[in-house]
């Protein structure tokens, strides 16, 4: 294998330029928090815990909750 010019992983040609970590980090935090909030409402609200009283949210997303693999009843 000839990879003497490559500063990246041996066996690969030089990698394309990565996006700097500190440019991704704010977006990563924003995206992950948003994703967790969405997953919470699909998967756990009015099940294990409840921010909104009643069962309307649970019943509305009920079939999705079961088919997407979240624990339900």
């Amino acid at each position, binding site marked *: 294998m000839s990879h003497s010019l490559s500063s990246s992983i041996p066996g690969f040609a030089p990698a394309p330029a990565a996006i700097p970590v500190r440019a991704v980090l704010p977006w990563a935090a924003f995206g992950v928090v948003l994703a967790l909030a969405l997953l919470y409402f699909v998967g756990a609200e009015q099940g*294990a815990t409840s921010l909104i009283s009643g069962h*309307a949210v649970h019943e*509305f997303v009920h*079939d*999705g909750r*079961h088919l*997407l*693999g979240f*624990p339900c009843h």
Partner: protein
Amino acid sequence: MTGVTFWASPATDGGSSLMAGRLLARGMVAGVIAACLAFLFARIFGEPQVNLAIAFEAAQDATAGMAPEPELVSRAVQATFGLLVASLMYGAAYGGIYAVVFAFAYGRMGRISPRALALLLAGAGFLTFVLIPGLKYPPNPPGIGHPDTIQLRTATYFEVIALSVCVMAIAILVGRRLALRLGAWNATLCGVGLFVVLTALMQATAPDINEVPANFPAVVLWRFREAAIGMQIVLWSALGLIFGPLAAAVLAPKTGGRRLAR
């Protein structure tokens, strides 16, 4: 996607931050489109099994002399609009997480095209967020879980996903480290081996939960789980295939035409 530039921190260059923001937005869009396809699959193959399970549950309640549960949201709405909205939220959420991972991985996983990396990461996402947790705690139709154990089942479900993410991250980081010494092929094999061992350890130590009633129809349970896994395969493969070209367009240099001329 407007307002993206305002997020650029002064410490980083605006172009990179803009790129990361656009990748996140496109990941969520790809997730929403993929979720529409997954919804269609679930509507056709999943809903009949959900209805059979609910019929079984109602029959059990009737023989036990329990009154039928009141419907706050009609079954028709749950099976259509409710399922669609749940799928879209799920698709947008995992589309976003997936795009964040893509933004970190691009350029750090050797020379691989954006489209190929998109597909590879979609496969890894399916494995990490769906298949490995699902092998321990498979999706269940209505009429199976006890209401008293919902806290425990929800906690263990999210824990096993978190552990699965850790196992995948450890395997990839160790594999990348070893690549410098062993070369890409052997390092990948070592990473996969480590992943299998850690996954087996995790699966063996997580508590077992079995609440399937003894007389629950086995075929309904199997068909439901088939539909659930099929829905996820549709979602993740569509996510990878749709996000690839979208990401490639973000990452392509703006001066592509001039580059060819040089």
